[in-house]
């Protein structure tokens, strides 16, 4: 007897599963766009229609990352996360689940926090991408949020930290850091398995005043 699905390349979770993130802080527009495109990719075995772009043929994509322009030849299925890590060499953005559940891949798109694992790279064209590498000042001095994370020991292993910090910056800028309860709620899309949560809240409280919020 054979189950319906014969083998499990990445288990049974479809990469395009709906219900995209834990606390739904990503804009619905981004999620909505991701599904049909990934769906199209999985149907790639169908005969190619003339003039329709082959998913494997490199796309010419221009991305503005941390104020620098990058021109890249990409597979249309490539996520912003994989472009940052594998193509551009900005490995500060982390892959923790690749399905919008953990927040480790959080970056800012035009100042709004998004999950780069659920954002196809082409969707970032023409928008300003900010990663953890782009947060400190050019002279090397840390962003107040980075310094606050150091001061309050707001991490242990450090793997979720870039995502936490970018999410925290956006949380303050959104006006969602009014009190501890609100910070906790609006930071709950970023999982920390070492469980530095109380220290993360303390760090955001310190940084928000320095950020003029």
């Amino acid at each position, binding site marked *: 007897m054979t189950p319906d699905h014969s083998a499990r*390349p*990445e*288990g049974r979770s479809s990469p395009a599963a709906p219900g995209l993130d834990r606390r739904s802080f990503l804009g619905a527009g981004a999620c909505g766009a991701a599904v049909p495109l990934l769906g199209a990719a999985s149907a790639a075995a169908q005969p190619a229609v003339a003039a329709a772009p082959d998913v494997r043929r490199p796309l010419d994509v221009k991305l503005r990352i941390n104020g620098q322009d990058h021109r890249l030849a990409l597979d249309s299925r490539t996520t912003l996360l994989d472009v940052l890590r594998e193509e551009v060499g900005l490995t500060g953005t982390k892959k923790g689940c690749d399905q919008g*559940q953990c927040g480790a891949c959080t970056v800012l798109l035009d100042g709004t926090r998004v999950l780069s694992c659920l954002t196809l790279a082409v969707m970032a064209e023409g928008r300003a991408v900010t990663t953890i590498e782009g947060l400190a000042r050019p002279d090397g001095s840390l962003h107040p949020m980075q310094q606050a994370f150091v001061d309050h*020991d707001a991490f242990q*292993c*450090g*793997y979720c930290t870039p995502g936490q910090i970018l999410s925290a910056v956006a949380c303050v800028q959104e006006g969602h850091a009014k009190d501890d309860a609100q910070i906790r709620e609006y930071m709950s899309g970023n999982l920390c398995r070492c469980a530095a949560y109380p220290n993360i809240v303390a760090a955001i409280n310190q940084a928000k005043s320095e950020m003029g919020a």
Partner: protein
Amino acid sequence: MSIAAPEPKANMGRPEPRLDARLKVTGEARYPSDVPVGNPLHAVLVTSAIAKGRLDRLDTEAARAVPGVVEIFTAENTRELKPLEYTPGGGGASTSVQGLGPDIAHDGQIIAMVVAESFEVAREAAYKVKATYAREAPSASFGAAGLDEKPAGKEFPKAGDAAAALSAADVVVDAEYGTPTQHHNPIELFTTTCVWDGEHLTVHEPSQFVYGLKNSVAKRLGIDPAKVRVVSTYIGGAFGSKAQLTPRTPLVALAAKRLGRPVKLVASRDQGFTIATYRAETKHRIRLGARRDGKITAYTHDGREVTSRPDAYKVAGVSDTVRLYDFGTVATSVNVVHADRNTPGFMRSPPVVPYVYALESAMDELAVALGMDPVELRRINDVTKDTVSGKSWSSRSLMKCYDEAAAAFGWSRRTAEPGSMRDGEWLVGWGCATACYPTHMAATTARVRLLPSGEVRVQVAAHDIGTGAYTVIGQTAAERLGVPLAAVTVELGDSDLPPGPVAGGSTTTASTCSAVIKACDAIREKLVRAASTANDGPLAGRSPSDLSFTDGRAVASDGAAESVADVMQRLGTAALEEYAEYIPHGVQQDGIRKLYSGRAAMTGGPHGDKIMYALGAEFVEVRVHARTREVRVPRAVGAFAGGRILNPRTAHSQLMGGMIWGIGSALHEATEIDPREARYVNDNISEYLIPVNADVPRIDVIMVPEEDAEVNPAGVKGLGELGNVGTAAAIANAVYHATGKRIRDLPIRIEDLL
């Protein structure tokens, strides 16, 4: 000072910020999958869709036809890999199921690996691999047909006639408890990148034991371990899941060798549930007998633990629980239950999390049966001499922990009657429990180099899995050599360095710092001798014991001093370097040789001349909503004694994080298993619930000063696994206090309280 960086008390070092803090907040810390390698190929695993049976056919034709696919590895073309014996301890193989079939031993077993020019192509092709199986009905867990249950060993702790003591007891508690399957779920995925340079292999993989991984990969590949290097500079969480060789690593190494290019694998989150280990579900029957005045006279504990079909992994935490109190008489047993599952393994505080949960719940039930305050019950049964072995404790501060935590919590305001502390819509419950973790020490080495400038370099293949190892090792060298911390560079996580202990059993700080102290002392010895035996100079003729080191100088008690640079010039050397080996008392003299060959040699806990444990007391408040039965934990207080605290900041974070793990254990975490297919159902971190920020309002950590000169030269007991022991029982006990309902199976959910 802040909550995160508490003021040091007696026998505590400075709360220095982490040495790697800047790297971690700027994204510059390179975790293994971040390390750039030239022109890598990308691998995606294909795993089995049945838990038991045989892989009849694997059709890779469609997958191979995807442009960009380079090779597909299956059972057919990986036969040259040598099978490894399963090793339950640190290092070695995590499972004896290493091949890609045709026999299928568990759901999610690796059956193929697709290697392609890009991740996207490899993933597409992986979906096109078609498997046909001869399926057999699997046995998933407790209660299934076809399980194989047997004793987990020949002998378990026993003392006196527990049966007789139970029948003579005034009060008896007899209850059964259960804990679920849990997965570590570090946020970093299980990644492996392999790069060959001729005959030399470099493995970039997050590892808690680079020497173990180096040696076991070499064995499986059939090559000389000297040709393998494992680099794991930063590890994105591990919690026990990265301590052993899992089947993926040799596959990636083989692929890279055969294809002549680096190969990079980033396994998916759901694959992590079956290609590595987990905490197995357990069941417990406990009987406690006591006199009316609260003195315990008998303790029996029968544990049952799920494991895989081929491997008898067990944690057998009775060897720890029997030490906790003065029980009078003891009888214990542990069985393993073989099921069609992947092999479980160490997960943070492996033996004590389930077993102490069960005992500390039973202790609370006994306190209720006696009508006694649960703290007083522990005080009456505090132990000075071990019930089973008669050994004394190296140090024991349990009741100090209880007293400090109880005072901070406000325990004296508790009213005993369940449901008596209602606050409007919320039923308030207060509970407490004991935390304990055996003090382990492992054989280790370290190399320390001092330059005339006062710069110090410490090298050891130990691991910082987020614990703060870089920082406390640096602090130890700085303090010993009298230089500022900023002058110390610490190198860890590379098997080209002298071997360090597995980052398991909470051994790293105690063991590595003991070796670092030894190496630093050898350097001091040379400096002292050169300064004091010189014909001239400010310290000539001084007694060596009169000299200490501070601010880069050797200083006598009257203030006479000579800079380290001058002393080294006197020695005619530009660098002083010492390699030291630390072999803890109780470890065989070949412990270091074993370590070089990738085997951890460990001692401590109940095994030495003295009973050695770190202890703590945890108090929690739960609020159960009167109508919805939602359970919240608004606050928790833990007081812990773990010998010398080298850095109150990193120690605070570890203990706090541990307590939050305990909240997860009590209320959130369980891997659900489909009993028909022996398959994990919620194999992702949105449905496998771990605590999020909104679940954790307030955690108070109190570090209770404790000195213990007997455990090891560093005086350290280890804290990494202490905080999450006891929390779950404290919460279950508080839920009883809130509702009058005793929930004995974790996690506690709304439906249990309706």
